[in-house]
């Protein structure tokens, strides 16, 4: 086969391969999300994080504003210490509340941030004071049963 047609076919092949990779990166993956460059880290301690996993989203008002980084156990306070990596574009007041929430009934767990009213903003390395743990289904059921039983007692 002639050299120029060979070059053409190979060029097309390589372009198609790189195109497929680009499609995978942009359309299938979340590379267009945020880069790790302009973020800041804050810490939050929870009594119980439930099934929270690293790389879970951090949402405020339902919009993804960051991702969960490392999750470690704080042996001094016996609490879970979670690193939240937040996009620099989003600034939150110092008295922001973090809670572990579940998307849908059986969906993945994420961290929801609710902004407070402080005039100063959170900076790199700050720790959130107000946190709310994950809801553990067993506790919920036992509470429900307990209150039902108490209700039955008063009716009699």
């Amino acid at each position, binding site marked *: 086969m002639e050299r120029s047609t060979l070059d053409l076919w190979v060029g097309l*092949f390589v372009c198609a391969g790189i195109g497929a990779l680009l499609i*995978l990166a942009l359309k*299938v*993956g*979340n590379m267009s999300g945020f880069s790790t460059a302009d973020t800041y880290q804050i810490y939050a301690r929870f009594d119980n994080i439930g099934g929270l996993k*690293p*790389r879970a*989203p951090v949402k405020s008002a339902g919009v993804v504003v960051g991702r969960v980084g490392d999750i470690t156990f704080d042996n001094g306070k016996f609490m879970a210490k979670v690193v939240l990596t937040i996009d620099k574009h989003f600034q939150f007041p110092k008295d922001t509340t973090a809670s572990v929430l579940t998307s849908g009934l059986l969906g993945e767990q994420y961290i929801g941030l609710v902004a407070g009213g402080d005039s100063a903003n959170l900076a790199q390395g700050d720790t959130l004071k107000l946190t709310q743990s994950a809801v553990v289904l067993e506790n919920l059921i036992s509470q429900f049963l307990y209150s039902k039983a108490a209700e039955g007692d008063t009716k009699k």
Partner: protein
Amino acid sequence: MAERSALSVRGIGRFTTDGVLRLGYAARFIALTLLHSGTSFRRFGLIIRELYFTGVLSLIIILVSGLFVGMVLGLQGYETLQTYGSESALGVLVALSLVRELGPVVAALLFASRAGSAMTAEIGLMKATEQLSAMEMMAVDPIARVVAPRFWAGVISMPLLAAMFSAMGIFGGYLVGVVLIGVDEGSFWSQMQSAVDFRDDILNGVIKSFVFGVAVTWIALLEGYDAPPTAEGVSGATTRTVVTSSLAILGLDFILTSFMFRGV
């Protein structure tokens, strides 16, 4: 009786030394190939020619099987997910299984049987018809002229083919899931995008296919170069290429997967 057992022990010994010898030969072969690849990069036309034969001509089989694998994944995934009422996760299922596993592995298996066997047969026949010896006679190194360009062509084309396989498979899953069955298009793509990570999933898939590319072309070239110069020898070498490289792909896949995805 004692003679019998001595004979079988000798058999084990021969098996081991043969294996070690072959491993050493294979290592020397790849080292020589890498050492001589400078010349083939300077004459890039040789690599382009081989890219055409290994890459472009494998396109049809890769694209068509990618499409069908994706379509089957869409159908079967829908059937299973439907029982849990989470059809909207179909995109995640199709994309993750293709990008992480099926794309690199199935593309590499197809590549081994389509391009690897052709490489072995070609080089084996070159050896049988004494073309390689003729080259040596003319002071042309057959490793630099014949082996190295084929090696690089295989290593370059394998990740590209695997990426095309995955992309085509996801398109097939989209066709069946969204167009045919009617899963919601928005949740199909958005759940896929939130679940598939570029570095953890896509890049690891590319690394896998690169490793498979090296393994398949290495085995194919070695079998061809080492084939007994007879018709039987070449046919046996071609069979061994397909069998050995398929086993190597599956074994390597397990090792790579256990390093890459440990369930976080």
